[in-house]
């Protein structure tokens, strides 16, 4: 049970129940779809980028608590940041949740991650890393203006 609390921290449960920035962004100039076919998670990320700054960002979709909360917290974390800052944050986030499992050991910069540290417990649950990463991969695709849908498979 306490072990479960590490995965499902209060912040995560809260963002799952009431996700922030859950809407279609009418004036988005970047957008990408992502899915995790194994669990049926589907997400669309919208961003409005002006002069390399993410002026606004939002998402829509369905999925497990981890992917929904990750998307919600991600949008909150990258709004107002430059594209490069957002990508850096993704790398730090990925290093934290993958926990070096995929040979990408990087320092999990807790200071930079802020509220995102709530996902630290995910690294103990390898099957769930994809869920946490899906929104970020999708954001990355949107920012890079990649056309093909993102899949975690």
């Amino acid at each position: 049970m306490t072990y479960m609390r590490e995965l499902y921290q209060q912040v995560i449960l809260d963002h799952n129940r009431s996700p922030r920035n859950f809407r279609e962004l009418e004036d988005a100039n970047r957008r990408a779809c992502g899915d995790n076919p194994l669990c049926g998670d589907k997400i669309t990320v919208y961003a409005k980028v002006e002069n390399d700054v993410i002026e606004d960002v939002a998402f829509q979709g369905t999925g497990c608590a981890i992917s929904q909360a990750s998307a919600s917290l991600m949008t909150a974390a990258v709004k107002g940041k430059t594209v490069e800052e957002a990508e850096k944050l993704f790398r730090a986030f990925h290093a934290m949740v993958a926990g070096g499992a995929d040979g990408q050991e990087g320092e999990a910069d807790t200071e930079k991650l802020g509220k995102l540290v709530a996902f630290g417990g995910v690294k103990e649950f390898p099957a769930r890393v994809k869920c946490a990463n899906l929104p970020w991969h999708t954001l990355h695709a949107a920012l890079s203006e990649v056309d093909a849908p993102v899949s975690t498979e």
Partner: protein
Amino acid sequence: MTTTVGHAAAGAFVKRKFDPETVRTDFPILARRMRGKPLVYIDNAATSQKPRQVIEAVRRYYESLNANVHRGVYQLSEDATAAYEWGRAQVAQYLNVPSPAEIVLVRSTTEAINLVAASYGRGHVGEGDEVLISAMEHHSNIVPWQMLCEEQGARLRVIPMNERGELILDELPRLLTDRTRIVAVTHVSNSLGTINPVKEIIAAAHEWGIPVLIDGAQAAPHGPIDVVELDCDFYAVSGHKMFGPTGIGALFGKRSLLEAMPPYQGGGEMIRTVTFEHTTFASVPARFEAGTPNIAGTAGLGAAVDYLQKLDWDAIAEHEQDLLTYAESKLSEVPGLRIIGTAERKISVVSFVMDGVHAHDIGSVADQEGVAIRTGHHCTQPVMDFYNVPATARASFAFYNTRDDVDSLIGALGQVRKVFGL
């Protein structure tokens, strides 16, 4: 009809009195602990566990019988060939197939269906023709037909189902047309547990002279099958779902059909004579078994069938139905839980969703309690779309499961509610 799926009575074997607690001891893995708790394995529709007899048979094969089959003139090769052909004969018996020559040994149900789609399908399904499947097929009984239809310019048609997850047979007369070339339906649904009235479907198709393939992946683990009684033209099974090894499966095909079918893959074992100009092919079933086969797996599958045939399937049917009824009644007491798939005739499989919790989260919490259930779309995405759910959690019981396993599942769902503050 003696058992739930409508199986054959398993003949003149000496049967042990069935007791789930006793059979459990035949399955070494069930003694494993998971995250500090006893393993509760209720994901049998994904794959089943293996009794010691199967594990031993595979070991014995490698320790004392291993050589290539149908090739050597020496004793060891003959021993290996005997082990392989014994496995084939065992499967034939389990499916009540008149002649072992009508059993093609393949990798799995998936390969069996692909074989029929590629070999029979290409020869018989042409432009404007139709292939009829059902709304509750596993992807492995959809995609090969879809590929065939795309290639040939044919049309894939689907027998619909109702809200309970039962096929609507009233639609059959409309769906069976003079363009229908083959019907492929599952005996038992892996995501809903529905036992389909395949005998009726087969009879209806035969009135039009249309052959029928039955996907038996989920039926065979629940008792012997009688393909003669069903009168199906093809029947596909996977060894790993019927307590045998992975990587081995079987396709039954009526001899007249098999004999008229071209090879599926080319290579060794499947030829009679080869020159650079021309090859003549071996007779069935060798024609469909190119290359060195999974000999150890076949020996293991033979041992699995041998094990299964000594069980009392009437008692097991009763036990599994009890598990199903008990699980469904306990699950419906969980607030916010909805069972997906409520057909009148079901095997011991229960899919469900819970308000406010995604199936994947249910699976992770259950795992912490040592309970292994499947979560996701179960390779039946059209079924998920039908019920408008992204995924379900699924408990699937084998004869070695007990009411205690159901109680563990219910306990785990209590934890889910606690974690999610429901």
